[in-house]
């Protein structure tokens, strides 16, 4: 593993562009078995489920551009069937000049590349859902100039993004006021955010057209926001004068979290938007020395909403937090940062290794016992520290 990482680092330093080097690395995976490096072997995490396809395989993480076979996809209304070749993206609502774009028309507009780590907001909620995160280079055209060109009318406040995917939603189920309506998947953000967050209408990832399961032909990319905001199979963008409160803004993907106000705990409901500061130990390896002692090393990744990772610390059992080494590249605003740390030797037996990220504002990734997590009553935004258990053999 160390050799693979070193090779990657050398490639990144030596290459004229870091992205080109990483994509080239993808073409020829550097492992036949994850433990193939002579002298260094993977210490499997205890009591963790096997990683299935289409999820990030933390224990073999060796490239910061995630291969397609480890990319997760989540859809709430199923994968829609429509003619992607004929599909148009409409921009409607409070605009002077509504517009409609085919994929080809979008492709001739100014092109932008965006590195972004994309995480499902439920990722980390349990050991069964620890790998719904990936990193990619998205290519598309910026949304803000298009919105401005449409002529935003006075009173425009909200931008709603609708997908081709639809479903019948039932409100107030089981009551006399039950109501069933067919709706499109929708998410929204303020006009201010839509104009200032480097939002992208993306049609390629890592140099390839989007996969159907990942939103082809056009999806929204909102750097630094959780996956749910990155609307797939984009069909219509609607400018409105009031807050949109569809299922995935107002009823689902809502965090209920207690906040201490003196002696009182006040519960606040908020819609899922920006990714929270997070790090995770991806894998731990063991190397045997000539004297028979084992030397351990931990590798991992940290990411946030673009605020910036200042450092990552790692703690073994009840020891002190130690600073990990952050990889020099890539250090892109919305792209995860890899870290590593030599743990030295450990006594035979079971041990716990955990990491925490600290951002440039001094915020610290919470533990499960901290109020930020302990008072969170819902599933999403599970950015708590995640202790890994290993067993060192004699």
């Amino acid at each position, binding site marked *: 593993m160390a050799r693979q990482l070193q090779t990657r680092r050398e490639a990144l330093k030596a290459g004229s562009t870091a992205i080109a080097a990483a994509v080239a690395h993808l073409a*020829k995976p550097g492992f*036949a078995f994850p433990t193939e490096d002579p002298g260094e072997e993977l210490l499997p995490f205890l009591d963790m489920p096997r990683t299935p396809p289409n999820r990030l395989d933390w224990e073999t993480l060796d490239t910061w551009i995630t291969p397609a076979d480890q990319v997760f996809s989540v859809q709430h209304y199923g994968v829609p069937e429509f003619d992607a070749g004929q599909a148009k993206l409409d921009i409607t609502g409070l605009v002077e000049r509504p517009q409609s774009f085919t994929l080809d028309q979008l492709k001739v507009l100014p092109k932008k590349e965006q590195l972004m780590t994309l995480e499902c907001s439920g990722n980390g909620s349990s050991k069964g*859902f620890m790998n719904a995160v990936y990193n990619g280079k998205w290519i598309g055209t910026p949304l803000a100039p298009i919105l401005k060109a449409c002529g935003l009318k006075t009173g425009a406040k909200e931008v709603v993004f609708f997908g081709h995917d639809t479903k019948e939603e039932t409100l107030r189920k089981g009551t006399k006021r039950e109501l069933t309506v067919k709706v499109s998947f929708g998410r929204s953000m303020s006009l201010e955010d839509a104009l200032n967050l480097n939002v992208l209408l993306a049609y390629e990832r890592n140099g390839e057209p989007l996969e159907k399961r990942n939103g082809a032909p056009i999806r929204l990319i909102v750097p630094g926001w959780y996956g749910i905001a990155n609307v797939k199979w984009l069909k219509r963008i609607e400018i409105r004068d009031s807050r949109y409160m569809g299922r995935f803004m107002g009823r689902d993907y809502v965090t209920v979290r207690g906040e201490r106000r003196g002696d009182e705990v006040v519960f606040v409901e908020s819609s899922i938007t920006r990714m929270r500061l997070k790090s995770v130990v991806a894998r731990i390896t063991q190397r045997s020395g000539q004297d028979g002692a084992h030397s351990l090393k931990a590798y991992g990744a940290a990411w946030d909403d673009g605020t910036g990772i200042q450092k990552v610390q790692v703690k073994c059992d009840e020891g002190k937090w130690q600073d990990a080494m952050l990889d020099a590249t890539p250090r892109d605003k919305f792209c995860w940062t890899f870290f590593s740390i030599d743990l030295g030797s450990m006594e035979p037996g079971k041990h716990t290794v955990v990491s925490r990220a600290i951002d440039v504002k001094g915020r610290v990734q919470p533990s499960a016992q901290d109020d930020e997590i302990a008072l969170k009553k819902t599933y999403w935004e599970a950015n708590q520290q995640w202790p890994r258990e290993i067993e060192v053999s004699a």
Partner: protein
Amino acid sequence: MKSNGKYRDSVSRQSLPGIAVYLFFALLLALSTSFAEDVSRIQKKHVDESSGGTDELAERVPPPTHHRGTGSIEGRVVYRADAERPWRYARYYVKDRHKGQLAEAVVALETAAVERGRSEKAATLIIDQKDFQFTPETAAIRASDSVKFLNSDMAVHNVQTFHPQHSFNINMPAGGEHVETFRKAGGIDQPYRIGCIYHSAMRSWIFVFDHPYYQVTKTDGRFRLTKIPPGEYICRMAHPAGRLRWSRRIKVEAGKTTQLDIVVSPDNKPKKHP
């Protein structure tokens, strides 16, 4: 662990009056208890071997003594890695990359042989939902056998399958259990793919056969099919997690054990995802 229905019924009848009736039911109890112990022993074996592959109801298959003019096939399944086509998840199934013994491979005969049909002595296999995965992940049973699904996690799980022969969809509260009987065989081509609706990463495959000539390899990659009537068969291997397939025509002779090593590589993957 609860006992199965047969055992509970036999115990409740002990209170019936009359010596003859008592003796009859005492005999029945003894037989049932023996059966229940057998089932329990099999269940325990599955639990104990949860991390090392499965030995599907191996107690049914005695050592190869070649009864009544039958033959045997034994050997091992080996995976040959290819650095140009790495199998990312090989670490779960190949413990020793140099030797390559492949665990959790299903080896079975394709046969229209005499013992085709359901088992006379149905058994129960345990598949546990623990640490957010099905354990064992790959299992093989005979038609009319049952699977007792357990949920040992603190979270709510679910057990569902959509199969041409038999579908079901059961919620599993923490600590819950559900017994499902698989009456129809799908053979090696149509395993029951089991999932959890709440945790999409959880998966399991249950192969159901209408004959007794099948086995799932353990960590040593070994398999042994016994009491096979002489004749020509097609021996097939499937590894659902690795999407590996293999088959070969093979001859079984009375009183003989045919050695068969199954060597597979990425070449044994189908060109298209099933």
